């Protein structure tokens, strides 16, 4: 099957520092990919360039067969402008480490804003969709609450519902449990599990939850210094890592837990 996301020779630099180095990565539709690695290895940057929060310097990214970072003009591919990127990135949704909910809106309004403004849904339709999703993430009783009245776990579940309301094909999770108190991590992971079971969603998640990655992902990618140092199905990856860096990282992480 054709990949739904394809990175081809992607390089991302901040000044002289290369955060992604000629990266190639294909993700199949409906695939769940866990991205792990030490901090500064480029794993968050991978999600951020895919969401067009950052622009890349070299290479090209395709989403659902369409170039995301480039557009066709007179038969040639030129760097995409803002307008073109908007037309492609609607297929992607993202959940952030710090939730980034809109603090001046209720949970329900957070989930209605983009469907009404971007997809052109009527207020009733947007509200129906938003309340259905908030129910799915277990927040039926918190719809009228502002974010500052919600716990971290609840806020992150609203953020997931908000992203889903745009019906993306690809969901990006950027360390979505890292800012949570330990006892709240489970409720968020449960929602992601449920999504994996019930929706045809491609998921890329940067995570430090090795147990969750092992149980949930179809593939684990280990990032090291802007490259994928090793990847494979979780059982193989965690029990028999080939790369020395992977082994060092895994033993360091497992020791910490």
């Amino acid at each position, binding site marked *: 099957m054709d990949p739904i996301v394809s990175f081809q020779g992607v390089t991302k630099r901040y000044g002289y520092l290369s955060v992604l180095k000629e990266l190639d990565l294909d993700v199949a539709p409906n695939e769940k990919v866990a991205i792990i690695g030490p901090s500064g290895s480029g794993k968050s940057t991978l999600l951020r360039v895919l*969401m*067009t*929060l950052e622009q890349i310097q070299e290479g090209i990214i395709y989403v659902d067969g369409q170039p995301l970072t480039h557009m066709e003009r007179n038969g040639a591919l030129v760097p995409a402008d*803002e307008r073109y990127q*908007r037309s492609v*990135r*609607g297929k*992607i*949704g*993202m959940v*952030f480490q*710090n939730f*980034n*909910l*809109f*603090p*001046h809106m209720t949970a329900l309004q957070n989930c209605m*804003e*983009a469907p009404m*403004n*971007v997809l052109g849904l009527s207020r009733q339709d947007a509200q129906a969709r938003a309340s259905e999703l908030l129910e799915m993430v277990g927040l039926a009783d918190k719809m009228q609450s502002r974010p*500052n009245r919600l716990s971290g776990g609840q806020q992150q579940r609203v953020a997931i519902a*908000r*992203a889903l309301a*745009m019906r993306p094909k690809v969901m990006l999770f950027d360390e979505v449990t890292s800012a949570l108190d330990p006892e709240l991590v489970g409720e968020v992971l449960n929602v992601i599990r449920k999504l994996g079971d019930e929706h045809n969603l491609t998921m890329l998640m940067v995570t430090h939850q090795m147990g969750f990655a092992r149980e949930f992902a179809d593939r684990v990618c280990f990032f090291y210094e802007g490259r994928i140092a090793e990847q494979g199905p979780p059982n193989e990856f965690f029990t028999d890592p080939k790369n020395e860096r992977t082994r060092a990282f895994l033993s360091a992480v497992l020791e910490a837990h």
Partner: protein
Amino acid sequence: MLFDWSFALEILPILAQAAVITIEATLIGFVLALLLGLALALARMSRNPFISFPAAGFIEFIRSTPLLIQIFFLYFVFPKFGIVLPALVAGILALGLHYSTYCAEVYRAGLENVPRGQWEAATALNLAPMATFRDIILPQAIPPIIPALANYLVALFKETPLLSAIAVLELMQTAKIIGSDTFRYLEPITLVGLFFLVMSLVSAALIRQGEAWLRRRRS
């Protein structure tokens, strides 16, 4: 020379009429300052240097020259370029222009205080720049800066007597005319001073109330 109460009472209606002009100039001037200030702040923050540099220069220029000179410039110099403005219009325009540069810096502070994550969330939801600005950024940037903006409203109000320099019939000018007609300055000038004092105190109290209300609403 003692304060003549009956004379004060006699000129009160005339001054009250002039007060209407003062308040008018204040309000229209301030609305102008608010709108122009937001536009200036956005231009100043633009990533395009051909927009941000002139905006920064304009703000610096207006802030570094006296309001009185700007008023004179609009009223006496502009006609040389074929732009003839009535005194009141020139005065209001100068007030609005002058204070828009102060408002612009306040807006900028407010806008820069909205966390970057809010812009990123808006991008991730594919909101258009206009909608992002209107629905996400402004509603978070404005409430914290309302007290600072309101202080400029009071400051602008207190500078309206400068319009008397181009013979706008606001409070100060009217008091001066009464003075020169009757050779009594004590009563008209005192009453005008009192009017400004009372209005300023009332506005200050309102601003404090508003601040408290905003704080309650945000928590």
